[in-house]
């Protein structure tokens, strides 16, 4: 039994930043790279399933350049014996329809019994990859999952799906399925130092598009949009309260008093 967990290295912009020369993204010099928060929860969910049953393998997979291996090592430090990283320069700026197709290629090789992705990655917030991956595989799928009852081998899983306003849906899904996992479903563990050390020794398979029977050109055709430009939105109307913290607090207290009086 195997659970495949796609994880992503996300980019966070510095406080002051500049755009790339082509204006289509942030200049990489101003980006910091981190693991996507949602993937902490999907990976934890997979580890929980693994630890509750015998003979379950959890395999983190990422689509990203060399340094994206860090996110895999971080996962492996928490559990799991091997990871997979897919990369090709053609995947630079790839949009979620393309990443989904690449992940489908990995799933075709690995034949997992379940795939858990994050609902979202916080750099671009597309919220598409998991469900598009399910479509590419022709698999059942459920998005924004906050509860999983499933023992590997079961033909169905019972899930909770978080809706708006705190409402939750209970539903069942046929397996194998792709579930996109929402924050709060569990409490992700930290990678221990010992775990991180051990993770360095664990194998990470590097795959090219060739290995997956894909080509950059055919993937390019799958792109569902093209970025024309990025720009800083007009900054908001907040009136900034300046001064020392004491002065700022004094003014803030005054404003609260005024507003309360007027209200």
């Amino acid at each position, binding site marked *: 039994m195997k659970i495949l967990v796609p994880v992503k290295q996300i980019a966070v912009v510095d406080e002051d930043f500049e755009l790339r020369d082509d204006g289509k993204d942030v200049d990489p010099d101003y980006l910091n790279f981190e693991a996507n928060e949602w993937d902490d929860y999907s990976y934890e969910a997979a580890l929980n399933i693994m630890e509750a049953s015998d003979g379950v393998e959890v395999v983190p997979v990422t689509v990203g350049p060399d340094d994206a291996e860090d996110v895999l090592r971080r996962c492996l430090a928490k559990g799991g014996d091997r990871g997979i990283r897919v990369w090709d320069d053609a995947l630079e700026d790839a949009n979620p329809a393309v990443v989904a197709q690449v992940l489908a290629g990995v799933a075709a090789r690995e034949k997992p019994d379940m795939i858990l992705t994050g609902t979202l990655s916080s750099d671009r917030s597309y919220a598409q990859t998991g469900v598009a991956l399910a*479509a590419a595989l022709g698999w059942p799928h459920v998005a924004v999952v906050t509860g999983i009852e499933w023992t590997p081998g079961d033909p169905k899983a019972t899930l909770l799906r978080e809706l708006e306003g705190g409402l939750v849906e209970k539903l069942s*899904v046929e397996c194998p399925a792709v579930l996109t996992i929402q924050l*709060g479903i569990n409490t992700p563990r930290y990678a221990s130092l010992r775990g991180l050390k051990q993770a360095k020794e664990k194998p990470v398979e590097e795959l090219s598009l060739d290995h997956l029977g894909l080509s950059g050109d055919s993937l390019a055709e799958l792109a569902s949009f093209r970025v024309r430009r*990025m720009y800083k939105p007009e900054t908001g*109307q907040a009136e900034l309260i300046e001064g020392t913290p*004491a002065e700022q607090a004094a003014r803030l207290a005054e404003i609260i008093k005024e*507003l309360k009086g007027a209200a």
Partner: protein
Amino acid sequence: MGEILVIAEHRQGQLNPASLEVIAAAVALKEESGHKVTVAVIAESPDDFAGLVAKAGVDEVVKVPVPVASFQSDTYEAAVLALAEARKPAVIMCAHTVDAWGYAPAVAARGQFGCATDVFEMRFEAEGLVAVRAAYAEKLHMEVDFPGKETVLLTVRTNVFKPLEDDGSPAVTSFEAPSAEAHTEHLTFVEPEQTGDVDITQAEYMLSIGRGVGEEDNVEEFKELADAFGFTLGCSRPIADNGWLPKSRQVGQSGKTVAKCKIYLALGISGSVQHMAGMKHVPNIIAVNKDAEASIFTIAKYGIVGDMFEIAEELRDQDS
């Protein structure tokens, strides 16, 4: 004349008000493109909703009967793909909701449509449709287009477009969707727990803390501060997810909307769309954040770029 196809959404017998916002966005897009606007109602009894979406500017309401009472992704996918096949719309639009997250990307992938999610601006230019969405925690906007795509699917950010007031008299038609094999089954809805905690939807003054609070032990001092000022303590999602405050205190899309709030003090909250969904209507938002670029400042009336602990400490001294 092309077509803009809006997919309406409903739950527990209620039309999702966000669908009316999408209809408004579609009608605005019609004015510049000349495309007709069709609203599809996919439901067990579409008649329940057909009248509600017949807004001025809508040309056609198409009723799509399906055998399921609540949202089911395979059913929606099959219906929307069949509609798209039959009508070749230039644009398919739906609200960027949890249900849409569950089917729209699959529709786009299967139909090989152009696709952009969480879009808050859209227009036609000489080369075709252009959509605008955010990136990097709202710090940037990105403009995207869809070269070579006959059909583009957009999920539209909620609380951006104003629903249309006036009713219209669109043609009403029916469409038979192919039967879909459903791989998920709705079991039940679970309502949020009634905790007996304060009802933040009724609070007039809120002080909300976000991840900037750092750790659980720090929560208490902000509780005291809120009490001292007569504010109700609320929070962003990570605080509730960590169990530092009950879920009933969470403001936002999957939490509560602070409907009656007049002053909202946001401390250490970045201003994600999902948080703002619950508070951006508040007339007096005051934000304290270390990061001058935090998007909470784009909706705040007053802002302090600074450390929430320092400001809190000074505020306490003010009070005494």
